[in-house]
């Protein structure tokens, strides 16, 4: 268990996340995924705006693993449900903190934009 202060520091060191890294982590919040599925879900979530190619994806994954925000899953789905060769990845607890911190950071940015009336706050009365 890392020291809490150092842990905080570690999270901050990773911010801001690259958009692609954020999306990868975000998709993994919903469960373990293999590469192609991540790419597809990211594509859907961004309405086709972000389409990761393999080199980019695996470089990101590698970096994220190095920073311990995600890890390779050792369990594989039942062989008949999917291709056994594929590797699955899952987000670590540390990774969840990083995503949360990034989301909070972005929320501040959004709030700032709203206060300048750049975009409307959906919860504010019209």
């Amino acid at each position, binding site marked *: 268990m890392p020291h809490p202060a150092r842990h905080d520091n570690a999270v901050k060191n990773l911010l801001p996340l690259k958009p692609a890294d954020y999306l990868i982590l975000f998709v993994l919040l919903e469960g373990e995924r293999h*590469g192609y599925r991540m790419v597809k879900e990211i594509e859907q979530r961004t309405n086709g705006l972000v389409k990761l*190619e393999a080199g980019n994806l695996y*470089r990101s994954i590698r970096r994220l693993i190095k*920073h311990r925000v995600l890890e390779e899953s050792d369990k594989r789905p039942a062989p008949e449900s999917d291709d056994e060769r*594929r590797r699955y990845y899952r987000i670590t607890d540390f990774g969840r903190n990083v995503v949360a911190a990034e989301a909070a950071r972005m929320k501040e940015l959004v709030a700032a934009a709203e206060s300048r009336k750049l975009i409307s706050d959906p919860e504010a009365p019209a």
Partner: protein
Amino acid sequence: MSHSHIRGLPFSERVYRLLFLFFPAEFRRAHATDAQELFRDRYREEFRRRRSVGIAVLWLRTLRDLLQHGFLERLDALLSRIRRTPVGGGDPPDVPVQKATIGDFMESIASDIRYALRTIRRSPGVVLIAVISLGIGIGANAAIFSAVDVFMFRPLPYPDAEQLVDVHVRNDERGWTQVSQSIPDFLDIRADSKTLEAAGSYGSSFNLATRDRPERVRGERVSWNLFQVLRTQPALGRSFTPEEEQDGNHRVAIVSDGLWNRHFGHSPDVLGETLFLDGEAYTLVGVMPPKFWLGQNARIDVWVPFGLTGEEQRGSHFISVTSRIRPEYTIEEVRAELGQIASRLQTTYPESNANNYFGLVTLHEEIFNTEFRMGSAIASVAVAFVLLIACANVANLMLTRAAGREREIALRGALGAGRIRIVRQLLTESMLIALLGGALGVGVAVLGIKGLVSVMPAAFPRVSEIALDGRVLMYTAFVSLFTGVLFGIAPALQSSRPNLTSSLKEGGRSGPGAKGVRLRKALVVAEVSLALVLLVSSTLLVKGFVGLRGGDFGFNTANVLTMHIDLPTSAYPDDDAERRLYDDLRFRISALPGVEAAAGTNILPLDGGSSTSYLIPGEEDPGEGRRPTVQARIVFPGYFDVMDIDVTRGRAFDETDRPDSRRVAVINEAMAERHWPSDDPIGKQIEIWDETRTIVGVVEGTRNFATWDGGSQPIRPMVFFPNAHESRQFMSLTIKAGGDPTTIANAVRSEVARIDPNLPVFEVRTMQEVVDINTQGATVMAKIMAVLAGAALILAIVGVYGVMAYSVSQRTQEMGIRMALGAGRRTVMGMVVRQGMTLALLGVAVGVAVALAVTRSLSVFLYGVNPFDPVTFAGVSVVLLLAGVTATYLPARRATKVDPLEALRSE
């Protein structure tokens, strides 16, 4: 899940695996498999959604992805190795530092590109020449690749096509390398082989009866299982059943999509319709899918079962055996088994099968034979030469530009830019130029592919598939990037190593050191030599091609009209009936106005072969299966006259050769040479086709094969028989016209219709057309090579010009001094021209040496032209030297215009 149905996937995966080498080994070990898997998924998805467009886009994205991230990953690895510190290893290590570095790096790349764009804008002329040179080189490569890809790299359009092989007969004693199978041997192979699923087929044209007039269609008689073996079923209806292979049950037919459209307008209710083929009623049971084809001829319209009677001869070799290797066996096991079957057949049927073995080639090799393979290889090498010449040109231009910027580069170095940084800057520029060249190349490729397809005969298999598709685009992108490095690296390395102090010193002479000049001259020499190799090769090919057109075949190609006729058995049941018709045709066509003489033969020259074994009485019989073979032809009287083949001894056939007269034969000089080199063959006998025949005449030799293995061989031995003694249902009429043979075609056709309105006349061609069709491989090659050589010559002239012009501009000062000291214009001009000539001469010398080594490989297309033809070598050398002088002349003139005062002041 099999992915072989997705076009291009296996190839793309191979390329992807190769390109993944951009990543460091460590990364590859960890992620290569997954990345490939992902690529495959994306490929399938894009293919399903948008076909080639999707694939093209995917490849562009993938290329960028691999280049960019492979490079960055390698850089990361390098940086972390440099920066590796023994202390700490804190929780997430190195994060802030690394992010900053990558960010810097991206920023610096962007600034490189901005900078490159700025410098390109500063000298648009030089860049334009570079882009055009590259556009020609890259475009030509893309165009040739589009064809080579279709012919050589794509799997045949059948499921699991790599399992398909062609099984043929080999007999070393008889000199058979790849001979057709007999039906009984095929049936034995099919029944006995555990490793193969064997199917057979042979071409057979039919008179297809429609409402009012007969149409001639190309068809094939096939074993019942051919479509099963190909794993391709009719799109409509069914394929054949085993029972339908037997005579009596065989009147069922499967037709092509094209015929279905022409005759039935794609009506879905055609199954069960009756087709009349050669007057017999066949039931239509199936329609093949639109693009189905098998074998070298892409236009088969009807398939019907063999109709086996049990009377088939083991000695008659005329069917192709297409087989599928069962997946559980290897090709060695297949060969071993075929060896056993062959030796059993040798023992059981010694009279027909002695020394017969079975050989295997892949179906792909069988269809895209040596001629295609050699042609593809030669064109690929030639077009690569063109690109290399273009690269040498551009490298020279880049050197020139870099030389002009030497002070700037030195300054950047002095201000702290590392050498790698400067090399990268220069490479970024060459990459940009290469990409512009690639973009232009796509345009050139569009035109090139159009031209390429237009010179290819439509009967070539898969020509319709040659197009600018995702694979060609991908190839073009790859070639462009590769080119950028190729022409960029040498100049970049060269000019990033300037002598700092001398370049920056006030008044330091701008210009590269001795080394730069040497590199530049070496490039020109290389360029000239490559151009010479290409010019010599293409001149030889064109010479071979002209020789073919010129008609040195030993027969008349100028004014002969030919047409095929095929007598239906129902109307002409026996030899007598056939002969009466042939005599009728001969006499009545001869009497037409504009016709000088009419005759016929069963096989037109160049149109095929019929190798027959024979025996000379009195010579020792080596036994069946070992007897010598000869090309046998059946001809009408008057044939030698129509074809202008001289009778050198004895007589030709005439009206005295009647069905009941003595059996006679005419041989050619090659045959006479073989058996009676010092004797008169007239009156000698020959035993052939079960009869002993007396030789009554000798004719001069003719070429009978234009295919790659025959053209350069000596004229083969031949023997001719009169049609009075051997009759065939299928004959080709040969009609000699007073003038242009096409003018008599209609008159002849209507005369044939008056004699028998139901007799279809087909393949009406002039003899020249017959020659053209059978020499089309050489024709295509000659045209392609001529265009490539032209491009090479122009690029080489531009190259020599560029270097000489630069050299003169660099020596302005020196010229000025020389002229100030009293050197005349002629002296100065002579000096420049001599310098240019030296380079051209060196280039020519190197080129001749290389050409001597490579032209031998062209021989299959040369048709007897000597690959070391001295006239060609000398002529091309002179042309290149003249081109060198021309390219030097303009700069030399400029040198003489130098104003000595001006030149000295510029210092």
